[in-house]
């Protein structure tokens, strides 16, 4: 059921270096087959939006990419390293793949700055002073530097999510994964987070986003992938995807979320 159409990348020309390669991926929760024969790849600099109805397996798929979920069949290769039971492979991939969660998941007992420097100092063995300088740069980029000594509970949801993005960036990731980053936000805070994501895309970051923000998909995605019942149903560039969906399930989904 794979109607992938090879499209030339939108915008500037990307090098065709593959960062994520997934083949014949299968996953079960008990008897429930959540991911069915997923094949897809992400090139360096590509922005991919994964969408689909809830329960379609898109979050599970993105969480397989850094082994927060274990797959049972198939291969995931990221930056030439295969994700398998080898814990040092897993930790290598996790340190190179950033992830932003729906509920931010900042560490509430640490200040914003401590949240940011934790992984660089422990995993990258960066001296604390260097890590703090870098962290302050990223905080300035997400426009939150003045809150660096507050605790996560003291700032708004939108601010927390921007901090979470900065925290991932501090590990200098090759790919950023976004798992519904705006779904838990109040409406007036969605834009500030999307703005940061758009900026990140413009800087050439490789991104895989699970999101219902179709405006964001239209604006920055190179490819939109539509999933349903654990399968990739349709995969296309955003213009064709929105104006001319090929499969009726995609049409039904789009008319539901764009219909009002």
């Amino acid at each position, binding site marked *: 059921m794979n109607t992938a159409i090879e499209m030339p990348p939108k915008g500037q020309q990307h090098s065709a270096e593959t960062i994520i390669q997934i083949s014949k991926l299968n996953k079960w929760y008990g008897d429930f087959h959540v991911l069915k024969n997923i094949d897809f790849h992400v090139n360096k600099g590509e922005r991919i939006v994964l969408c689909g109805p809830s329960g379609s397996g898109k979050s599970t798929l993105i969480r397989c990419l850094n082994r927060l979920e274990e797959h049972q069949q198939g291969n995931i290769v990221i930056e030439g390293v295969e994700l398998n039971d080898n814990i040092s492979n897993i930790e290598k991939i996790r340190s190179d793949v950033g992830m932003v969660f729906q509920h931010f*998941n900042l*560490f509430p007992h640490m200040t914003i700055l401590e949240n940011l420097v934790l*992984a660089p100092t422990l*995993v990258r063995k960066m001296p604390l002073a260097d890590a703090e300088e870098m962290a302050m740069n990223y905080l300035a980029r997400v426009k939150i530097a003045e809150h660096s000594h507050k605790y996560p509970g003291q700032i708004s949801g939108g601010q927390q999510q921007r901090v979470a993005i900065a925290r991932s960036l501090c590990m200098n990731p090759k790919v950023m994964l976004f798992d519904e980053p705006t779904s838990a936000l109040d409406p007036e805070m969605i834009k500030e987070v999307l703005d940061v994501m758009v900026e990140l895309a413009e800087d050439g970051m490789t991104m895989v986003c699970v999101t219902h923000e179709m405006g964001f998909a239209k604006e920055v995605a190179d490819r939109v992938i539509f999933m349903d019942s654990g399968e990739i149903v349709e995969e296309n560039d955003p213009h064709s995807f929105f104006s001319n969906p090929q499969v009726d399930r995609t049409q039904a989904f789009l008319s539901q979320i764009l219909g009002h």
Partner: protein
Amino acid sequence: MSDMTETALRTFTPQPALAPPKELKGAVHWARANLFDGGLNTVLTLLSLLLIVSVVPGLVRWGLLDAVWQGDSEACRVEGVGACWSFIGANFRILMVGIYPVEEIWRPVLSFLLLLGVIWLTVSRRVRGIRMVAFWLVLPFIAYWLIGGGYLGLPEVDQSRWGGLMLSLLLAAVGIIVSVPLGILLALGRFSDSPVIKISCVSFIETIRGVPLITILFMASVMLPLFLPEGMDVNNLLRIQIGMILFSSAYMAEVVRGGLQAVPRGQTEAAKALGLPYRHIMFYVVIPQALRHVLPPLIGRCIALFKDTSLVLIVGLLDFLGMLKSSTQDSEWLGFEAESYVFGAFVYWLVCYSMSRYGQHLESAGPKNNH
């Protein structure tokens, strides 16, 4: 009308808040609302007042006004005097350190100051993270070395001469310092993927929790030497200390387990996603949050352990309570049990209440999480 709405929109200022009505303030209102609201509460209030009036004046007269503060035992035996606090003064050294050699008393005092120093460093957040843990874990060894001596030029003081509050504090402090990390390890072991580790931890915890402390103390004191190989000599005090640590760590483990379960899964996931290895996830992300969740019961366990040290009297150690008891049998000071035990109760209360207050301070000082 529409003109007015527009003006109002442009220059909206909230109305000033009004003061509450007079009936809501003042001592009379407070008493009426809290002490005399309804028949039952009025009766209870009057009964309590009666109790206070009948007990407190006598207590104050005995303990403060008519009390003897100095002089020898003869001064206390005069007709009509109250509490004999000079008894405490005369026995103070024995109560504090037992029959520890006088010329070496600086050693337990220094250990106590070190304990206060580490507490201060922790409370004032001058040391944190790994360094704080290291300070705490080194402290028991230094304390045992300072008090016991025998190495590095310090003359040995046999453990039969240790006693009094020093012994109680030593047993409790070392017990707490060692059993908290041990309890954390046991709690983590309960969640281990390895069935061997998991089953060992669960059976240890459940076995210890099924046995009264006094049994463990008897086993440590009496039975353990029978199992030890010939020539291996662990002294009585150390065996009892180890018994208390094992007992306490099983309870700590159960407290910490509750805390671990209260840390949201997203925290571990976020830490994993950053590439942190398991030990760092636990040490920096999960355990600090878990401990904060269970601070009240954890402090409660510490207080209980301090009070439980009084049980070592039964296996022949003269801790604070032991010294209180034996000093009343001093021929010169025979018959001052009330003073002895009131003073003992006061000291136990002082230590426990300080721990409890510190726990409350920690709870309110921690950063608040908004979800």
